[in-house]
């Protein structure tokens, strides 16, 4: 997946500069509701439940203050990616036990013509392994800065 395609899945309206949530359940709820307020989602309850179920298998808090809740559900017609920042931190049961400051939420439909969900997820994990990308993401305040920072990870 090239940089252009990767970046095309991020939308400004799903950029949340300051999350209110302080717990995992709250942040999943808040981000799904945020997306639903900008985009016609079929059933937000199903999406939230799916994400919570996924967390029960193992936290998607991958360390370094980052979480990537994700999963497939029929409740979305296309791949949706939201990003939220929490300056004060979220209790997320991450692998390094540290609070989460950046959340990438990814929901994909089961039926995908291009089957882009896993390649996208893989690319995101790869980009977030770059230390200066992570450090800079902590500083971004606008969507444009956010996109520029991710592009810097390629």
């Amino acid at each position, binding site marked *: 997946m090239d940089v252009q395609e990767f970046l095309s899945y991020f939308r400004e309206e799903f950029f949340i500069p300051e999350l209110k949530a302080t717990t995992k359940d709250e942040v999943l709820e808040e981000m799904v509701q945020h997306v639903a307020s900008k985009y*016609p989602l*079929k*059933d937000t*309850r*199903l999406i939230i*439940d*799916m994400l919570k*179920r*996924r967390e*029960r*298998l*193992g*936290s*998607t808090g*991958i360390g370094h203050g980052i979480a*990537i809740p994700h*999963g*497939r*559900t*029929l*409740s979305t*017609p296309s791949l949706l990616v939201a990003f939220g920042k929490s300056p004060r931190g979220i209790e997320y049961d991450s*692998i390094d036990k540290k609070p989460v400051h950046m959340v990438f939420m990814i929901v994909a*439909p*089961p*039926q995908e013509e291009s089957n882009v969900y*896993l390649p996208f*997820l*893989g690319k995101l*994990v790869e980009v977030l392994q770059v230390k200066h990308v992570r450090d800079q993401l902590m500083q971004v305040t606008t969507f444009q800065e956010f996109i520029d920072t991710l592009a810097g990870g390629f």
Partner: protein
Amino acid sequence: MDDKQLRCLVALQDVDHMIRERAKEKELGFDVEGVDELQKMREEIAKSIATPLLRTYERLRQRYEHAVVPVKNGICLGCFVTLPTSIGSKGKENITVYRCENCGRILYWLD
């Protein structure tokens, strides 16, 4: 359409996808526990689905990657056939969940 049953069915399919994609997620570096927990969740959800409907789902799953598919603009996204305006046919299960007349998949309206 029995909405509660359909919601459970969609949740069941979501879990089945998690089971199937567990290995791929692990490869990406995610922490994913064994299938046991997933199977337990699956059983929990399956309990709330009427037996004939569950059987239909399982049967369809043998044949197709997706047993429950969305309908968009009147088209079944499983087989891409335009559904009759009378919104598809009812299944033989005596439960009012709609199925595609062409491919038999269980339908879920996205719009």
